[in-house]
């Protein structure tokens, strides 16, 4: 058997498996099955191979081989660019768009998961080489579990209170409680909104979360997720029924008006609570001196 055979094979297999377990195909239908999944599994395999050979290369004093890791980083950055571009293109065909911030978040996740695979393969190859394959398997499970735990971001329910809000019209202006949503002409439109619409108020827990919710990308993500889970009463020729998310400028509360197909407040709130908080939207004004002092 060639040297390092078991080390490398164990690390490659477990690394690829790690990527497989990180691929979550859920209601978002992304990555699309089967082709999207195959693409990412193949990239995961390459990442696992790179991670697996790093330790043997070092032990053989082939230091130049390690520079391949830098090349890998370049490749995986490419993954992020590809994902971003594709999703941005596809976003144009969505009735309620994801928005560039959400897409950037997704693309970032795809890139970083490949690095996690490299790391997992490296850990497995180290454990397998210095101890035994069984310990390699255990270490890979621990690595994937730790990765999942550390990489799980927060959801809206962690940063804000979500509750129903009453929809009302003042002349042509539609409000969710005191938050002005939009000016809409036409009696028919008004009737449809009163009849089919649901209003939701999202109240941030503190000033940090207030800034997060102020981000336009975060608000687009809210509208997209709500619409994709409950359906949206809208077509291309009725842009007035697009879900709208507006801000109470005084308090930073968010008001959302949506016309779902499934008109069920309970599940709308569940859907909103599960929306991920975008990495790019997260602000921490309370960490600054001015922000801390200004809070009262």
């Amino acid at each position, binding site marked *: 058997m060639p040297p390092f055979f078991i080390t490398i094979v164990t690390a490659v297999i477990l690394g690829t498996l790690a990527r497989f377990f990180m691929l979550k195909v859920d209601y978002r239908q992304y990555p699309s099955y089967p082709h999207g999944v195959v693409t990412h599994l193949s990239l995961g395999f390459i990442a696992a191979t790179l991670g697996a050979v790093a330790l043997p290369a070092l032990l053989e004093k082939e230091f130049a081989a390690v520079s391949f890791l830098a090349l890998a980083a370049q490749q995986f950055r490419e993954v992020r660019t590809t994902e971003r571009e594709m999703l941005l293109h596809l976003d144009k065909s969505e009735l309620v768009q994801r928005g560039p911030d959400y897409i950037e978040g997704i693309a970032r996740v795809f890139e970083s998961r490949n690095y996690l695979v490299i790391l997992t393969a490296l850990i497995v190859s180290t454990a397998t080489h210095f101890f035994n394959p069984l310990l390699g398997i255990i270490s890979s499970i621990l690595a994937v579990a730790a990765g999942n735990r550390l990489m799980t971001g927060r959801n809206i329910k962690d940063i804000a209170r979500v509750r129903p809000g009453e929809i009302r019209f003042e*002349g*042509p202006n539609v409000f969710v409680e005191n938050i002005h949503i*939009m*000016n*809409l*002409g*036409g*009696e*028919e*439109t008004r009737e449809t909104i009163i009849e089919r619409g649901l209003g939701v108020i999202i109240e941030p827990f503190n000033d940090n979360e207030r800034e997060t919710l102020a981000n336009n990308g975060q608000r687009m993500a809210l509208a997209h997720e709500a619409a994709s889970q409950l359906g949206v009463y809208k077509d*291309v*020729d*009725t*842009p*007035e029924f*697009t879900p709208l998310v507006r801000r109470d400028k005084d308090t930073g509360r968010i008001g959302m008006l949506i016309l779902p197909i499934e008109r069920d407040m309970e599940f709308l709130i569940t859907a909103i609570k599960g929306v991920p908080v975008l990495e790019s939207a997260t602000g921490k004004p309370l960490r600054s001196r001015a922000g801390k002092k200004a809070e009262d």
Partner: protein
Amino acid sequence: MDVTLSKFILAAVTTKSGIVEGNFPIFMVESQEEQERIATTLGRVLEGVVHDMENGVFILVKH
């Protein structure tokens, strides 16, 4: 790269003359019912949103 216009007035539907001018189509109508009907049709055709200016003028805006 495709370029799209947004926040752009596509047309106006008015019951009163002389209060709206511009380089977009202006539809003069007789009654409020006709105004509603024409504005809705235009909205569907042009994929715009109807806004009520509360002075007898409806504008259609591309968002």
